[in-house]
């Protein structure tokens, strides 16, 4: 679902053993060349078959007419064009808007939180928060939605206690959904930023102070520029994660907020007109395009931040 640096994933030691192939000792200690390749084969075969089949069928279906259509299967652009018009376009825009807003808030809020966690003196707190972030960022979905429905839903504890309904509160709208999304986006941001923040050397801060910089100037001229690639990369990652989320919204709002994931699910389970199955596939292709753009932006940024904050 998302590219998540893990809570307890490992040490921050630099990779050293990667490419020292030429320096190794006698040849017989190494695996023979042929069997050496064999280890990679299952992984490649699995992805080619399973991923390739699902992905290929999706793309094929998106650009052809359904078999039940008169005239049989032939190439068409109708599905793709339908997927960017009318209700489908609304849902695409709704998804993009929700993801962009919630990812932005999570990025802005996540930075100070991650900073406090990383520089905390209490190692136990750190470990607990990072493990918790791992759970929330991955587990998410349905349980999360229910925790919020119990808290701020129409019959929720806080809603009742503070009579929020009479103040016009509704969890089942755009901002309610944003609030819930933040619950797994902020942990994801904390996890993403932790390695980068750990890479900020204390000496840089001291050097800035020795040159007369106050906290604000240190952050504005040293820390933030260093962190910018990580922040941007994190934002893009969060956007992708929110964009592809389905379970939370499905468990919570039904269809009151138009989202592209819900449209696909509806079209697949036949809640709409027959023959819309291929439009669902076209919507899937739309999502892949957006997610692909996200990755295309994120990977170079990640490389860049890794160069400084290794």
């Amino acid at each position, binding site marked *: *679902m*998302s*590219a998540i*640096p893990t*809570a*307890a994933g*490992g040490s921050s*030691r630099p990779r050293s053993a*990667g490419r020292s*192939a030429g320096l*190794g000792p006698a040849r017989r200690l190494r695996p023979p*060349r042929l*069997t*050496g*390749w*064999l280890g*990679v084969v*299952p*992984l490649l075969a699995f992805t080619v078959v*399973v*991923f390739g*089949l699902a*992905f290929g*069928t*999706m793309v094929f279906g998106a650009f052809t007419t359904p078999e039940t259509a008169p005239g049989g299967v032939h190439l068409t652009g109708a599905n793709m064009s339908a997927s960017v018009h009318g209700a489908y376009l609304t849902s695409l825009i709704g998804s993009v808007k929700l993801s962009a807003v919630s990812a932005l808030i999570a990025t802005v809020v996540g930075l*100070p*939180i991650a900073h406090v966690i990383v520089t905390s003196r209490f190692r136990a707190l750190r*470990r607990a928060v990072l493990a*918790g972030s*791992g*759970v*929330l960022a*991955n*587990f*998410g*979905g*349905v*349980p*999360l939605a*229910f*925790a919020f429905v*119990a808290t701020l839903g129409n*019959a929720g*504890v806080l809603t*009742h206690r503070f009579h929020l309904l009479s103040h016009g509160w509704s969890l089942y709208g755009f901002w309610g959904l944003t609030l819930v999304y*933040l*619950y797994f986006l902020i942990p994801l941001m904390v996890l993403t930023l932790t390695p980068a923040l750990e890479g900020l050397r204390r000496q840089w801060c001291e050097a800035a102070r020795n040159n007369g910089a106050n*906290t604000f100037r240190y952050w504005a001229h040293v820390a933030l520029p260093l962190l910018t690639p990580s922040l941007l990369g994190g934002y893009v990652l969060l956007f992708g994660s929110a964009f592809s989320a*389905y*379970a939370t919204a*499905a*468990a919570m709002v039904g269809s009151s907020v138009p989202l592209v*994931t819900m449209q696909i699910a509806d079209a*697949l389970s036949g809640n709409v007109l027959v023959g819309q199955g291929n439009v669902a*596939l076209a919507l*899937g292709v739309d*999502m*892949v395009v957006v*997610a692909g753009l996200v*990755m295309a932006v994120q990977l170079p940024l990640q490389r860049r931040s890794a160069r400084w904050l290794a």
Partner: protein
Amino acid sequence: MAGLSRIRYGRAFVLLLTGAYFLVPLACAVAFSIGAGTPGRSIGFGAYTGVLGAGGFTDSLTLTLKLAAATIALVLALLVPALVTVRLAAPRLRTLVEIVCMLPLVVPAVALVAGISAVLRWGPDHFAGTPVFQALAALQDQNFPFVLVLAYTLMALPLAYRTLDAGIAAIDLRMLVEAARACRAPWPRTLLQVVLPNLRGALLNTAFLTLALVLGEYTVAAILGYQPFAVWILAISGSQAQMSVAVSVMGLLVTWVLLLVVATAGRAHHPKETS
């Protein structure tokens, strides 16, 4: 000194606010599940004690755990040989393996399941009466839908790759293997008794993150029409709201504790890092 204390207050403020945001919903969910906070309901732990007897709970949980076990096994069986190979014998394949493992990120779960369901619908029409048809039918067996294992494995690949790769990067794999080989250990023994034990922390971590993913996975299972744990929670939410919330909270907490235990255990085995 004034600046220092201000910073300290700032930190406390941030922590407090964060703690409130993340703990209040959990606390409220617990309160809701025992009936506190809602008038007209007596406080009781019925939602928790009744879980075991609730219809479908054992079935869905068993199904989920079976799926999780199979997914973890498949993920590790695919990734460990590939990553060890890349480190030891074929460093040039590293980029290829990384790209392959990151590919599923480009395809959101909903899009993936759209593709999968298209394959499952398309197959029977064209291969009726052939072994392919039987294979497709076996994939969708209601008791153990292996198609879910395939989908979950794909979805777990990016996360599992990063976790395992970080774990392998943290040990000097080449040196370990060369030492073992120099002691005349045959290859299988080198891998089983030298490499794998040293990767214990990373393996455990990968396994539990995969477990968390499978436990919480809803999209693929719901759309393909199966009822593992997460789908079951949603299914009972209409009639037994308290129980669905109770199970959700328990799920979150149990996963968190498990991951915390694994993180602590994994750390204890490493020598102290110097920085």
